[in-house]
């Protein structure tokens, strides 16, 4: 996997926080309509706005799986308020770099993080499950 950074390989090989929290405080789902990649985050948020538990499921390219895992590791234990700073550039940096054709993966990751914050603030939830169509 020469096309991937060590961080990406690590998270791809040993995904952190895999799974889905039943009865989570908040659920966020995004899918990229072009490539079909999907990430589902489920999280619990403590009283001090800190993410006390977070899980992911993902379907898509290796980089998106790794970024989803990286995202949970980054978010876990952080105040929700800090997540607004987590944009695609920052995620790419945390991922140790992405190849040009993988850059949009970071955008997908940032999207789902922001969606998590917004959903929580608005008290909304995404119900979409991961769907692999076959």
């Amino acid at each position, binding site marked *: *996997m020469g096309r*991937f950074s060590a961080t990406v*390989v690590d998270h*791809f*090989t040993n*995904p952190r926080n*895999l*799974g*889905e929290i039943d009865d989570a405080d908040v659920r966020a789902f995004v899918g990229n309509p*072009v*490539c*079909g990649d*999907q990430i*589902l985050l489920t999280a619990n948020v403590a009283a001090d706005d800190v993410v006390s538990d977070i899980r992911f*499921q*993902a*379907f*898509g*390219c*290796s980089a998106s*799986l790794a970024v989803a895992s990286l995202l949970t590791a980054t978010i876990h234990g952080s105040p929700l308020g800090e997540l607004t700073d987590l944009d695609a550039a920052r995620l790419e940096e945390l991922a140790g770099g992405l190849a040009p*054709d993988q850059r949009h993966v970071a955008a997908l990751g940032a999207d789902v993080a922001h969606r998590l914050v917004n959903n929580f603030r608005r008290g909304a939830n995404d119900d979409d*499950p*991961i769907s*692999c*169509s*076959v």
Partner: protein
Amino acid sequence: MTTRSPARSECGADDQLSEFVYLDHAATTPLTAEAAAAVGDALRLFGNPSSRHTLGQAARDALDEARAQVAALVGGADDEVVFTGGGSEAINLALRGTFAARRGTGHLVTTAIEHAAGLECAAALRRNGVDVSIVAPEPGGHVDPARIAAAMRADTVLVSVMHANNETGAIQPVDEITELVHAAGALMHVDAVQTAGKLPLDALGADMVSVSAHKFGGPKGVGALRLAAHHRVEPLICGGGQEAGRRAGTENLPGVRGMAAAAAAALPRLRDPRHREHQWRLRTRLLRHFDVLDGVRVHATNPVMAETISVAFDHVRGDTLADVLDLNGVCVSTGSACHAGRDDPSHVLTAMGVGADQARATLRFSAGPATTEDDIDVAGRATVAAVRQLRRVSGTAPR
């Protein structure tokens, strides 16, 4: 091939192969020891085959000898072999060279499952005024000769069909098609890049046959077109009179010698039933590993190349699965190598009626002559584990 494999080439690709189970032979093969030695020798033989002095004539003799060896593999007389820069160039010479010699008029029939080289030639010809008909395959991956017959017209100049498909391994009925094409007075081209060194080619009745060295143990960047003496093509590369005016430029002597040595090494395998049986045993063995999984579908029906196994694993992305396998020391592809990195689903599977998601869920395993049952077991176990892991990640694994 792994460290356990007994057949190790001496100056071949050991260093890399010892760490990996390589099941991507349809993309390219390791150089055989014979080919590596031939390339090495040819590098020392440095005269220009067109020079009249001793060193030039030594190079010329080596070229002639190589031509005879390649002719033995592809069938046809020595002077019916045109050396090219690979399979793609051979196909371009066959298709575009035939129509260029007819000032770009007439009708071409080909199929929707051809390699990009064939399809892009067809597209270029169409842009330049040639009528092109593209015949779809049946769901099992085979082109029905009746559909070729139906597509043919009075002005059909050339029909081009591959011998076996590079993604699915489906063996096409090229003999039947050649017969009906010739009965109609048209010319036949067979892209035998995937079958050279695996199936005999000398009985092919086609007027043109394309092969590529690196698919049968030879070096990359060299190939050949078997071009019947009665058929004239316009050269793609104009200039000096090399290759009897059919392809200009100082000959790739090391490449050609390597290809010839690989051809000579492959020939005995072609007539060896044990070799074929071994490949079938490997195929069956790999597929048996997948029995423990749900949602596994093999794309091509028989007849198929034993070596090429195209399988869809539901709820899994093929490229991601290939990455997991790569991390576990197993090299496979999602489909054709030159397709890698592109997101659009395989044109071959799509033409067969496979949906985009299932096409994207596809992995191609392709074995080589030195692949062992151990290799297959390593790959099989790794694949089962990887499919289960990815289904867990996406939450689509059965709980």
